[in-house]
């Protein structure tokens, strides 16, 4: 229980977690928060993207098993759909990379 509270504090109050090497109390919290947000955003995006892609693949495989003759066309449509679903997670990846590497807001 105590470790849970500590973990929650570390997430919610980055200045506590980073107190050891945080330069000053007046420093901006945007930097530490942006690192956390990048990681969590990518985690949520990857998980939800996997759910969506799983549904798409499940119904595509179902359709291919019912109609093996149309397998090639179904596969093409599935790959395009997967690319379009995946691009949403890729947007989050780009945002995370901007937060991590470019750091427009310090």
């Amino acid at each position, binding site marked *: 229980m105590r470790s849970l509270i500590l973990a929650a504090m570390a997430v919610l109050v980055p200045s506590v977690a980073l107190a050891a090497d945080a330069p000053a109390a007046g420093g901006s919290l945007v930097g530490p928060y942006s690192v956390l947000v990048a990681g969590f955003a990518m985690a949520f995006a990857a998980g939800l993207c996997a759910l969506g892609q799983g549904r798409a693949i499940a119904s595509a495989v179902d359709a291919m098993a019912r109609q093996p003759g149309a397998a090639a066309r179904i596969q093409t449509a599935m790959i395009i759909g997967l*690319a379009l679903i995946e*691009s949403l997670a*890729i947007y989050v990846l780009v945002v995370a990379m901007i937060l991590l590497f470019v750091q427009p807001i310090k």
Partner: protein
Amino acid sequence: MEAIEHPPIFRLPGVPDHVTYTWIVMIILIGLSWAATRRASLVPRGAQNFVEVILEQFIQMIDDVIGVEGRRYLPFIATLGLFILVSNLMGLVPGLMSPTGNLMTNAACAIIVFFAYHYIGIKTQGLGHYLKHFMGPVPALAPLMIPIEIISHLARPLSLTLRLFGNMTGGHILLAIIFFLMGLQGLIGFALSGSLGGVIVGGIGGVVMIAFTVGFLYPLKILVSFLQAFIFVMLTMLYIASAVEGAEHDEPHGHAESHAAHH
């Protein structure tokens, strides 16, 4: 990105890296096509055979998506596809970089696609006819449909760019982080520090890292390279098909068949 990715070995001073490596891809592709067409014969051999097999795949895809009349766009589509494929694969060679790992190269490709399919649509249907597609099915809906259509058309090059960029750069960062975490330098340094334990730990760590990278990450990246090139080309063909499509609706579809039946 420079923080974790090593710069490529070969750099020209004053030229950005992705431009240098775009030129290298161009040299590879021009050399390949020169070798293929140098002694073009009816019975293909060697390089000509290789290139013909690749182009037949493109023609097959174009026939499936756009139709036979889409074959006139083969040079455009196949050039884009081969350029992106070779660029993607070049990032897998240690010491080189892939030009598609940079936003500028992808944006250039996507903007070419954007203007090309509008040009093709206007050329095949005429300007007024093409613009009529933006108004939706019912004229009363036009004020609602026009902004939606404009935004969706503007989102196409953006999503093409970001998808390719994200996939390539994500893969590069993944490779870099795996190397960084399992620390070839650190492990070797640890191993060379003298103790037998260091040698054992460093050796096992190095073997695990190499096995994971060669056995899993590299095949995954090769798959992603082919898949992203395929998807870029496929979406380009879908956009061209949707731009050309209106022309087919106006002409009766059974025209060709009835013509054939008469003979």
